[in-house]
């Protein structure tokens, strides 16, 4: 039997929270969402927990069926098993990933024009230095770098092609009304962002 989570009409991060909660007690959860951000976030949560995933678009919403494969074979461990999985993946990466957080579409405070030149240069340089960071997180006005019309879109795409993960704060995109203009990176939520920051080997804040 599957547990039903109706996440339609719920604001981020509620769909993720409710899905996570449901997966703690049930092996099979069907989540109904009504927007692409929720779909993306719930799907990513399921994948990060090692669950199987099936998405079906229906007239009244998108149905995400999540099956917790791990739990089927190891029921005794229960909910703990879910959170353990992330930890195991992290320890496999030795000291954890190098994370760059970009908090604004400028580098440094003072002069905006100069700050914009600097952030453009910085992002360009990230593609040339070695070792490159593993993950880049964009939040607050930093998300403006990843949307249509930004001067660094090509650089960000280039970084993605190199395997660098770019997490873009969904709340921030929504706040600026830019959600549908994202061109580089993936929409992320505070769960992913907090997890990433706390499991990082090194955090570089710009």
């Amino acid at each position, binding site marked *: 039997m599957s547990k039903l989570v109706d996440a339609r009409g719920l604001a981020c991060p509620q769909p993720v929270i409710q899905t996570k909660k449901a997966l703690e007690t049930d092996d099979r959860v069907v989540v109904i969402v009504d927007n692409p951000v929720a779909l993306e976030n719930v799907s990513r949560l399921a994948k990060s927990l090692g669950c199987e995933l099936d998405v079906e678009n229906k007239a009244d919403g998108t149905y995400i069926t999540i099956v917790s494969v791990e739990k089927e074979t190891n029921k005794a461990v229960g909910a703990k098993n879910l959170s353990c999985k992330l930890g195991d993946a992290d320890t496999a990466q030795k000291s954890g990933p190098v994370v760059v957080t970009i908090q604004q579409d400028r580098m440094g405070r003072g002069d905006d024009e100069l700050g914009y030149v600097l952030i453009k*240069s910085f992002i*360009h340089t990230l593609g040339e230095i070695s070792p490159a960071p593993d993950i880049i997180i964009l939040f607050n006005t930093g998300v403006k770098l990843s949307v249509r019309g930004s001067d660094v879109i090509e650089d960000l795409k280039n970084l993605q092609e190199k395997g660098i993960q770019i997490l873009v704060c969904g709340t921030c995109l929504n706040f600026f009304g830019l959600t549908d203009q994202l061109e580089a990176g993936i929409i992320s939520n505070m769960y992913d962002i907090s997890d990433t920051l706390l499991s990082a080997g090194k955090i570089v804040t710009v």
Partner: protein
Amino acid sequence: MNDSQRYYVVLFGSVSHTLLAEKILKQEGIPHKLIPVPRHISSDCGVCIRFMPGVRDEIEKAIAGRVTFDSICAV
């Protein structure tokens, strides 16, 4: 030298000169990119404008008489 794989950069005397040139090139619609001055050219924390060899003439024409530049080099 295989020109198709190379870029050129225009170097200016100051950041303000570079930004002025960038504005002009944007207005003229000439493809270019503002990048940090490559380390092997200068250790200053400067910026310069990178472009493909094919637009060199266009670029020189666009900024001629409007912004003075130091040099153009292949990178």
